[in-house]
Structures are given as C-alpha cells and as structure tokens.
C-alpha cells in the first residue's frame, strides 16, 4: 500500500493536521444529527481524510467496510431512456460518488441516488442513525443543472439523507447550495505541519532522517500533503539511507513545462510555436489538466521575466484560461497564450535592445 493510504488517519482523534477542525466536527455530530456539509480547500489538503473519519465517527467502524460497485441506472426521460454507469463506493450507511464523471447527465445520477436512499431509509434497530450520508466529490465540477436540481432535494429529503459535499473551488458552487450547507474550509497544511507528518511517517517506518531533509521535501510540496508524502516515498525508493544532499525529484511533467518555458524565451517564431504545440499536446495526452499546464507555464515564465512584463503576462494567462473554460479545445487557447507571450516578449526585446 502506498504511504498516502497507509498513513491516512482513520479517526478524528488521530488526525494531526487539522486537529481543531476534527474536534469541531466531532462536536457537530455529537447530537444525533448534523447539517449538510460543504468541505472545500486546495488539492491534497486533507478533505477526504476528514470526511472519512467523520463518517466513522457517526456510524462506527462499519463505515470503513465499503464496497466498490459499478452501478447502472436506466433513467426514464419521457421519450427515451438514458443509460448511465458510474462507480460508487458504499457502506451500509453511506454512498460516495463523483457525479461529474458522467458529464452533463450528472443531475440524473444525483437525483436517482438520493431517491434510492430515501426509499431504503435505514431502519433503526440497534440505535443506529436514522439517516444516510451521500458524499459527493468534485461538486465544483457539477453542471449548473445538477446544482440547481439539488436545491429542493436537499431540503425535501433532509430528514433521512445528509450530504457531504467536497470540492476545491467553492466559487464554482452556486450560492443556493452554499446557503444550504455548513461550509467547512480545509486550508492546505503549513510546511511545518507537513514536516511533522513526514517525521511521524519516518518514525513509523523506522527511517533515519538527516536534519533538514523533511523540510526540503515540504518546500517542494506546494503545501500539498499528498504530494509531500508521495515525494517522501519516492525518495525512499530511490535511495536509502538518505543523505542530507539527496535530490528531491521533481515531477516529470513539471520539468517538461519548464523546458517549454525556456524554449519560448529563447526563440519567438512560428517554427518554435509549432514545436511547442507538440509538447503541449504531449502534456494533454498524458492527462495533465490544461489549466494546470497553463498555471505552471505562467509560474515558470514569471520566474524568468523582468518586473515590468509580469503584469502583462499574468493578465493574458487569466484571459486565455477563461476563454479555455468557455471553449472546447484546450490546445487552441494554450497555444494562443504562447503566441501572445511570444509577441509581447519580442516587442520587449526590440524595445530594450533594438
């Protein structure tokens, strides 16, 4: 098992990063019921971990006995039936799914699952809770329609179904949904907190950590706990015993983006643009999300630019990312950004050096 899974705290009391939030959650569910919850925060900050620990707090160890199913739904949409398939994780007391995986038909899934839950209302025999929990991942990726259709459903079935919603970007969740939940912000852990987690894992694995080693990993982690733990394990595989100057390997795709940045700083021409396009394609084919690529590219460019150009370049990055979101073909917009950058940079070079 990967360390990220092996050392994921199981109960709210074991959580060592968001201790305060964990204790609050514990109090929140102390009395039989809890409101709908919306967890939001950057990737790898510990949202899922807290949600799973919270389920255990509410339902006991049974919440960990999950089965993975590929569920099929036949949805009667009047004139035709829609077939949908989605992977769900469920225990006796909860169901977890990522409805955005079925694209624009996401709202049917949400409705269907909630109704199913309402029908199979848990019967209380051994003092177990009278409600089930539906965990919805990536609600920021839900279509507007799906979000709208959640509005009344969340109220109507609130007696027997609680929603735990989870997302990165809460700005993408509609006001009406946010108004129906207690919002729980999960900030990314600080570098010191990450160091603590790494030290603890090191201890449990019986590893010898040179001083400053964990700190260097934490600095490279972008404050993502998941990333830090993955890096740590990679280092362990690459070389042990650790040495204090051991290199922390960067992600392949990030190096690749750094290369692209160098390429376009060196030469601004249609030919170069064409070469860069190939590289951008390569990244997309490897499933690096286009907005992540754009952000990383901006990061690399900003590192290399004079102050006066930074404003201009970040302006266009924001502009093209927005266009990309509205459009369909990400590559066009990435390429447009690169072309724009080349033109600006060339203008700058000519103005400065003639």
């Amino acid at each position, binding site marked *: 098992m990967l360390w990220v899974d092996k050392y994921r705290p199981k109960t709210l009391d074991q959580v060592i990063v968001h201790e305060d939030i964990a204790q609050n959650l514990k109090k929140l569910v102390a*009395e039989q019921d809890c409101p709908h919850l919306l967890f939001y925060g950057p990737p790898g900050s510990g949202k899922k971990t807290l949600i799973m620990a919270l389920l255990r707090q509410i339902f006991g160890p049974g919440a960990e006995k999950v089965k993975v199913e590929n569920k099929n739904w036949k*949805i009667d949409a009047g004139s035709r039936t829609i077939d949908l398939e989605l992977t769900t994780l469920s225990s006796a007391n909860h169901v977890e799914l990522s409805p955005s995986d079925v694209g624009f038909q996401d709202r049917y899934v949400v409705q269907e699952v909630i109704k199913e839950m309402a029908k199979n209302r848990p019967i209380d025999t051994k003092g177990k809770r009278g*409600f089930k929990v539906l965990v919805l991942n990536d609600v920021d990726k839900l279509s507007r329609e799906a979000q709208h259709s959640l509005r009344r459903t969340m*109220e109507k079935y609130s007696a027997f179904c609680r929603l735990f919603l989870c997302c990165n970007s809460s*700005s993408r969740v509609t006001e009406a949904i946010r*108004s129906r939940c207690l919002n729980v*912000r999960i900030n990314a852990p600080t570098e010191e907190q990450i160091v603590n987690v790494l030290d603890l894992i090191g201890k449990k694995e019986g590893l010898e950590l040179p001083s400053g080693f964990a700190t260097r990993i934490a600095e490279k982690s972008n404050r993502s706990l998941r990333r830090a733990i993955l890096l740590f394990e990679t280092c362990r595989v690459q070389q042990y015993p650790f040495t204090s100057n051991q290199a922390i390997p960067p992600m392949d795709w990030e190096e690749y983006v750094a290369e692209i940045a160098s390429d376009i700083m060196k030469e601004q021409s249609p030919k170069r643009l064409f070469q860069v396009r190939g590289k951008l394609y390569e990244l997309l084919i490897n499933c690096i999300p286009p907005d992540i690529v754009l952000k990383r590219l901006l990061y690399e460019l900003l590192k290399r630019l004079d102050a006066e150009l930074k*404003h*201009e370049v970040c302006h266009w990055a924001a502009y093209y990312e927005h266009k990309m979101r509205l459009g369909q073909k990400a590559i066009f917009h990435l390429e447009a950004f690169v072309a724009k950058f080349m033109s600006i940079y060339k203008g700058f070079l000519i103005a400065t050096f003639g």
Partner: protein
Amino acid sequence: MAPVLQSSQPWVEKYRPKQVKDVAHQDEVVRVLTNTLETSNCPHMLFYGPPGTGKTTTALAIAHQLFGPEMYKSRVLELNASDDRGINVVRTKIKDFAAVAVGSGQRQGGYPCPPYKIIILDEADSMTEDAQNALRRTMETYSKVTRFFFICNYVSRIIEPLASRCAKFRFKPLSEEVMSSRILHICKEEGLNLDGEALSTLGSISQGDLRRAITYLQGAARLFGSTITSKDLINVSGVIPPEVVGALFAACRTGDFDVANKEVNNIIADGYPVSMLLSQLFDVIVEAEDILDEQKSRICKRLAEADKRLVDGADEYLQLLDVTSNVMRALCNMPEEFQYDS
C-alpha cells in the same frame, strides 16, 4: 411495525414557518395570500428572489393552509427540477394530477378547500425554454381547475408568456432587524444566549439569507455551546478575516509583483473562496479614503470582469492574480495600457 425514526430535523426545517402570516419581511405576498385564505381567490403565482428568503416556505404554507393535512395529497402537487425528467414526464404528471375532478368548493375539516388544485413548480428557472413553452399550453388547458406557483431565483430565466400569466412577487433579502427578531425567537426556543454584537454580526454575514443565518447559528451552537459570541459566528461562517484582505491590499501598495504573487498563493492555499474575497476587497477599496475616484473606477472595472469570469468557472488563482496586478498598477499609477502588446 418499523420503529419510528427519531432523526431530528435541522433547524432550518424545524423553524420553517407553517403559516403564511409567520413569513417575515415579505409583506406584499403575505397580504395577497391572507386575502386568498378569506376569499379562496388565487391567481397563478411567480415567486422570485435570492436564496433563503422564504419562497418555498410561503408556497408550502399557503397550500397547507388552504387544504389541511387530509386533502393536501390529493390537491397539491409539488414538482421541482429534481423530479423533472424532461417536460414530457412533467406534463404527464400534471395531466394525471389535474384530470381528477375536485368536487365543489366546500370547507372541509376547518380548511377552505377551494375548488382547484395547486401545482408548485420549484426551481422553475432550471427548466429549459422548450419545457416552459410546453407548459404554457398545459397551463391553459387546465386553467379552470389548477393554480400554478412558479418559484425561482432568477426571474429572467422564466419566459415572458409564462411570467405574464402570473402575479409576480419579488422576495427581498431580509433586513437585519427582521432577521434579528427571527433569530432571537429561535434562541429563545433553543435556550441560546446571543449578545447584541453577535446578533448584528450574524445579520451582516448572512446578507439577507435567513437560511444561512439559521445554519450558522446551529453550527455555532453545536461547536461552542449555548453562549455564542460574534467571533464564534465568524468562525463557522467562513467569512474571510479582514486581516487577510488587508494583507493583500498592503501587498498591492508595495508595487512589487512578487510580493503580491506570494500573498495570492497564500490565499489560495488557505482555501478562501475567491468570489467572496473579491467582494470583501471591493468594500475595502470603495471605502478607502486615500484612493482617487479614478483609481477606484479602474479597479472596480477589473473586479467586475473577474467576478463574471469566476461565474463562468475560470481558475481562482489566475483571476485573483490578475485582479491583484491591476490593483497594484492602479495604486502605484502605472499606465493602464500595456506597453508591449502589439
């Protein structure tokens, strides 16, 4: 028999007014509906307005008051976007429902029971235009025996031919006084202590949305016990602490792009919702006394653009960085036009 479930309801449901007269702050619609209770006359209705202002509450209350628990099921059909599986299903449901005769309008069990049925279409703004058009016909066909209640957040999404058939009521965000009196009522019932400061904080952070205020209150009560302070409420509400906005603003004043970028990165890592941050930044900028109107307008233009882009789903980091860069350029009197853009 299966044991009765005792899962308690969230407070928003527990304190949902059961009678039209208890709906706060929406005087006009309350007046019209009170009249309905006396005369049994009721037009088609369209309720619109922001979340948590009482639209669903009002529609459910009038339906219950007109028909009482016995008749409710046979006389009221509640449909929402979640039931809607295409207009055909809706139409069939409505047809089947409307087709059963209602009998004469006679009071039953102390309820007026007027001779029509009520169809509540909640979340009507998520119906497609086609679906709405199709509904027009249905509405006409059954106009003698049905009354429609349309409920939505955005009235502009309801097509004109439907809207014009209804009496329209805008539900206003609740004023702080009205909100306070509802909150105090709940505090009394639940045995909570809330001082004046906490009460006014709750009013301002929930921005006229009573559901939100009640949710915050319940959250705070669970977490902090029966005496709740203003700080506790801010804590559960997820409002961004003024220091955070202040730090960003200060970073803009330095004129150093990298300093500002670092601040933006921190804000994103801390997970603050950028849409909320922008509106708090807006307040700071509008109120700042040492910024010229010209600078303010330059900044606000950009804020508006970013807000729109966020609604479109644009990336939070990039939008915030762009706004920050613009604020910096305005504050430090850097030219508005870019230099190297050809």
